[in-house]
């Protein structure tokens, strides 16, 4: 079934998108739309806003497929990075200040759930949970607040009352350690 779209590589689908073949974008959406939507929803806590982000990210790929460079990573990481970036932009933007305030308020009152606990409730694969658990508390908290909380490293430093340089180092070293741990599971690129 080589000719069927879902047998094609991501890179080949992007080439088809460059040729303006809608079916290729539909296949990209089928493969990656779930995680993209899940991440946006997790960050924004608003399915409607998350839907807008997903739509924007997919249309960006449709309009600018040449910006995806397979040598720089997988299509999924590319899409998720843009999803995360756009979601964070929305969270940080002045127009979204109210959204963030409501979001932070919900964070505080939702049955006492901390961000860390919430991350653990996500449907992460067991090996990802296991890898996160092997990080030091400082590294894990910094990554969780930055990635799932949408905070800048400076904000994380303030929240954790820790020097900015330490937070920068913890995020970087935490990601490197996660890469090594996940590589043992055959998931992450080996450095």
């Amino acid at each position, binding site marked *: *079934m080589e*000719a*069927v*779209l879902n*047998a094609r590589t991501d890179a080949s689908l992007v080439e*088809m998108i460059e*040729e*303006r*073949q*809608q*079916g*290729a*974008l*539909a296949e990209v959406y*089928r493969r990656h*739309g*779930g*995680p*993209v*939507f*899940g*991440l946006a929803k997790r960050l924004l806590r608003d399915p409607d806003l998350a839907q807008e982000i*997903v739509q924007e990210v*997919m*249309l960006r790929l*449709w309009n600018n497929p040449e910006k995806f460079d397979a040598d*720089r*990573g*997988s299509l*999924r*990481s590319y899409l*998720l*990075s843009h999803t995360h*970036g756009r979601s964070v932009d929305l969270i940080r933007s002045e127009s979204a200040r109210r959204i963030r305030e409501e979001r932070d308020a919900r964070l505080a009152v939702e049955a006492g759930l901390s961000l860390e606990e919430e991350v653990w409730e*996500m*449907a*992460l*694969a067991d090996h*990802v949970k296991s890898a*996160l658990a092997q990080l030091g508390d400082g590294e894990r908290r910094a*990554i969780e607040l*930055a*990635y*799932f909380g*949408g*905070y*800048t*490293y400076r904000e994380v430093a303030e929240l954790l009352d820790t020097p900015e340089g330490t937070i*920068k*180092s913890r*995020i*970087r*070293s935490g*990601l*490197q350690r996660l*890469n090594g741990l996940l590589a043992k599971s055959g*998931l*992450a*690129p080996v*450095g």
Partner: protein
Amino acid sequence: MDHSEVVELLGAYALNAVDSDESGPIGAHVDACVECAEELRQHLQVAALLSASELFAPAPIWDSIADELTDNGSPTSQPTSEPASPAPTGAEVIPLRTRWLGPLAVAAAFALLAGAVVVQSVRLSTATSDLNTAQAAVSDLTEALAEPALASAAQQALADPQARQVMLGSQSSGSNAIIVLMPDGTGYLAEHSLQPLPADRTYQLWAIIDGKVISAGILGPNPGVVPFHIDPEGFEGFAITEEVVGGVESSQNDPVVAWVAA
């Protein structure tokens, strides 16, 4: 911003956790620095793994995207546009909304059934079976179609705008299967990600018709393209179970993957 400063910020940059005034210089440096580009690539891959928490892409979002493509007059939405390669990319001509009927219904079924493997409420063991009839139909079809022709027939079905594509899924296993069903009830297991079974086990396909679960065929332990035939009237869904070799008349097992109309 020099190399060492950028390196220090690469992790935060990968997580979109740098300030806007830092983002530009970091990006420019990464564009010119192979070492930093490689480290950033690895950080982004790790971040992507942290994100993957949803199996299915919501169908309504695709509908919105497709509407945008149409509104913007994309070439594929214009009747005068020329298909790049009709035969090998036959699946592309399937109406896009049709492509997502399956995942949408799966998602709805998952929500309805609280995240467990779907169609729990339609216990296979309580349903009647028409195994012999279905097996005979499968046998006839199998004999009629040589292996290459079978793939070709499935391919044509996938490209048929009248055909219905559904994706059977499971939240627990992550497996899925694509079935294409023609209006006359002829169908094909076209693709799947089911794990191969031992020789003494087999996958079995079930059709849910008017609330009853009817065997639609024995798929074998490691199915390729498999044809089947069902009565399309009252069709409500499909399920695939794992059974002892030879199959069963009514299953006691929960589906490996399933799809139920919303």
